[in-house]
């Protein structure tokens, strides 16, 4: 079985040196205002390019929309 992570409940293939930026590209997410958690832990924007997401991680990406 291929190594994987879960992104918003969808399994995607895990590769070495997988960063948040790469995940956003794979998922085709172009939104700007995101809140991202990896295994329940908040990941801030300055870590999107550097934080390596380990195999089997549960990644949650929330897209925030203006209006209130």
């Amino acid at each position, binding site marked *: 079985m291929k190594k994987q992570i879960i992104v918003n409940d969808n399994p995607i293939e895990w590769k070495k040196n997988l960063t948040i930026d790469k995940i956003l590209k794979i998922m085709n997410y172009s939104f700007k205002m995101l809140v991202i958690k990896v295994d329940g832990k908040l990941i801030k924007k300055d870590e999107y390019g550097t934080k390596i997401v380990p195999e089997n991680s549960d990644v949650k990406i929330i897209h925030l929309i203006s209006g*209130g």
Partner: protein
Amino acid sequence: MKISQKDFFSKHDPKILPIIRKATVGIAGAGGLGSNVAVSLARVGIGKLIIADFDTIEASNLNRQQYFIEQIGKPKVIALLENLKKINPFSEYQIHHIKLNEKNIPIIFKDVDILVEAFDKAEMKKMLIETWLSEFPEKPIIAASGLAGYGMNELIHTKKLDNLYICGDEITKLKNNISPMAPRVGIVANMQANLVLEMLLM
């Protein structure tokens, strides 16, 4: 007209009322979401509400926010305090006329049991959520995302990510210069208020 606290709470569930009366809930923003959340939580009888907003009332706000024509020009938190006291004078309301940022959020809301995110702009929502999750990871925050337009009841939902909750449809965007409408923003605000109760009474 004067009413007694006993009369006000006479039809509340006596099993849950003591918990509600002891609770402190924060509301960040007093616009379409915040003013509606505050009115519901005041009616319910939450013991203390801490509400912060920097804005003043404009005529265009009256399409969805819990204010009146004669309050135009007033700071929203001042007008909201007036209105909440008219609805339920038996709860405590602490207001802050201030623009919230990473530094003052942890100070203003440090004593709340639950924080409600009720901002308009997405970048402010993100700032508040990230500040809260970093400073108080053990305390719930209930945010809203996606409430523009009308109809589509079936798309509105609640999502839970540990202590972060999102109410809304997570898809509908605002059109340029067009504000959300009373029904949908009211629904999402009341979903947030409903979730506050559920969490307090868990």
